[in-house]
């Protein structure tokens, strides 16, 4: 459905992870800070000061060691538990402006708000400023707000607000003079458009479409022939015609991935088995939380892709269950036995994990005529007891195999982990 009179806000936290860290450790203010991915591998968040040092998104730490030392860049491990709680609060504040059906949490640090129903009664830019000030006061997080007639336009507006300090972090394309709008569109590269990406932008550039303005002026139906319906929709959206609605309910999961890289290099099969049994249990927990059954599991192992001296070893194997299951014991059994087939001696493993696919809702599953229900019930009772223990005592208190005993050979390294101020024994200290 196409609509010409919609209003969308896109609110996005600036440098989310670094900004969260700064709320609880103000000594990080005005300093170069980066936050690393799991296992302290790559820079996944950078403060503006770090961006100014030309530290790129996703660069491995060892490649920027010199810059880090020379400029005293503060390096932190990612504290996902804390970011998730701040993110929950961020989305909750925004949902107070409209009804629940008009908010779409798009990612940990981004949120769409459909403001169409209220446009007549409010000054849009003022509302954007209010949101920004409220999130800053309540949570200490800096945000930018983009306002447009479509989701794609609100994304571009957000980009404009971020790059041009004159906007004071809020850019309203709905009420902007069309000439000004064209001017800003002509300054932004086409690759910045939501959904275009690097692959398409190359092809677009070869057609002489370099900027957002070029794309907005393209003929949607002709472009549909050369690309796809998605590209045509993007062009309509840039022209202020909304084609993409707010998504209320996230589509049910197609797969669940649980994997992490190891603190050090792992060579032994027993260590790998311990690690994969933990990821299988993590995945199982998520599966059960969603009320799904899993029919098929993929197990994989990898060596370090950044090591130039040895060839990259990357192997996976797929196995299916005779009956879809949500029992941790089945997953651990399957994962550890599949590992036997992909393990090779002499490899320094960096990562392993499992992928659960073939998912279906548990409530809708039709069991086979010859299903052994007694056995399934027994497993379910056991799993419910485990779930109960996990929610009461924490998920590391009971598990299959020795994977939750501290100090395993493969445990993740998070050397620079900040406190989680939402846990009783890690509260912030004030003097």
């Amino acid at each position, binding site marked *: 459905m196409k609509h010409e009179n919609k209003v969308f806000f896109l609110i996005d936290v600036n440098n989310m992870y670094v900004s969260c860290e700064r709320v609880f450790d103000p000594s990080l203010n005005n300093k170069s800070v980066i936050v690393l991915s799991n296992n302290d591998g790559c820079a996944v968040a950078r403060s503006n000061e770090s961006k100014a040092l030309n530290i790129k998104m996703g660069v491995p730490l060892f490649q920027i060691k010199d810059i880090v030392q020379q400029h005293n860049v503060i390096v932190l491990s990612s504290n996902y538990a804390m970011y998730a709680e701040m993110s929950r609060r961020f989305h909750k504040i925004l949902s107070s402006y409209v009804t629940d059906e008009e908010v779409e949490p798009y990612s940990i640090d981004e949120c769409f708000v459909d403001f169409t129903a209220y446009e007549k009664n409010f000054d849009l830019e003022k509302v954007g400023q209010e949101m920004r000030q409220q999130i800053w006061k*309540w*949570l200490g997080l800096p945000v930018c707000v983009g306002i447009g007639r479509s989701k794609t336009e609100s994304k571009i507006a957000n980009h404009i607000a971020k790059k041009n300090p004159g906007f004071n972090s809020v850019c309203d394309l709905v009420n902007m003079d069309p000439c000004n709008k064209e001017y800003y569109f002509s300054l932004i590269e086409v690759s910045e458009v939501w959904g275009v990406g690097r692959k398409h932008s190359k092809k677009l550039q070869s057609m002489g479409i370099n900027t957002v303005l070029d794309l907005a002026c393209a003929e949607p139906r002709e472009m549909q022939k050369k690309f796809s319906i998605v590209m045509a929709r993007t062009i309509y959206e840039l022209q202020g015609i909304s084609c993409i609605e707010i998504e209320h309910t996230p589509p049910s999961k197609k797969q669940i991935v649980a994997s992490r890289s190891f603190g050090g290099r792992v060579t032994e099969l027993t260590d790998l088995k311990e690690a994969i049994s933990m990821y299988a249990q993590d995945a199982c927990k998520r599966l059960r939380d969603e009320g799904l059954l899993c029919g098929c599991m993929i197990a994989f192992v990898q060596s370090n892709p950044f090591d130039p001296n040895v060839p990259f070893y990357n192997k996976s194997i797929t196995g299916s269950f005779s009956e879809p299951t949500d029992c941790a014991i089945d997953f651990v059994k399957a994962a550890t036995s599949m590992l036997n087939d992909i393990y090779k001696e002499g490899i320094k493993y960096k990562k392993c994990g499992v992928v659960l696919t073939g998912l279906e809702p548990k409530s809708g599953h039709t069991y086979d005529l010859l299903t052994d229900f007694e056995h399934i019930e027994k497993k379910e009772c056991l799993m419910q007891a485990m779930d109960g223990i996990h929610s009461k005592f*924490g998920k590391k208190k009971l598990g299959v195999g020795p994977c*939750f005993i501290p100090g395993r050979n493969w445990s993740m390294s998070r050397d620079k982990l900040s406190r989680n101020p939402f846990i009783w024994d890690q509260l912030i*200290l*004030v*003097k």
Partner: protein
Amino acid sequence: MLLIQVRGYSMSEIAPSIIQIKPYLQSGIVLSEALSIKQVIPTTHLLVPYALEKISAGFPSPAQDYIDKALDMNEHLIKNETATFIVKVASLSMLNAGIDIDDELIVDRSLDAKHGDIVVALIDNDFTVKRLMIEESRKWLKAENPEYKNIYLQEGQELIIWGVVTCIIKMIRNS
């Protein structure tokens, strides 16, 4: 003859494999060894029920009839959950205001700090808890303990109010 179709296979095709799988399934679930349980992290909500009316002794009606609502400590102590944070005290500078080391403070960032409020503030990017004093155009931070100094802003120093303290949680019996 009756032919039972199960997922596209006829009975005779899958029956042998079922016979093999059944004893395998019944061979029992192997329980992993239980790990030692050390730490308790309470994650449940504790509701304390309270009676609306006095119940006279010997009155036959069950007490449940009088319980209207349960006391929820979160609801009682926290007015705005989204903007509330809890911090721990690490100095004696507010002792005379009843704030001791290891007390926990409930801090509401959504409130506007007024003269006389106890606040968590930032001075030179350091956390401090003090009483906010607003006199004409000047703001300063008062320590509630004669052994600690009040904080007056020096040239170039900035006072940032991080949040307003609304409640002190004081454990008086350490277990």
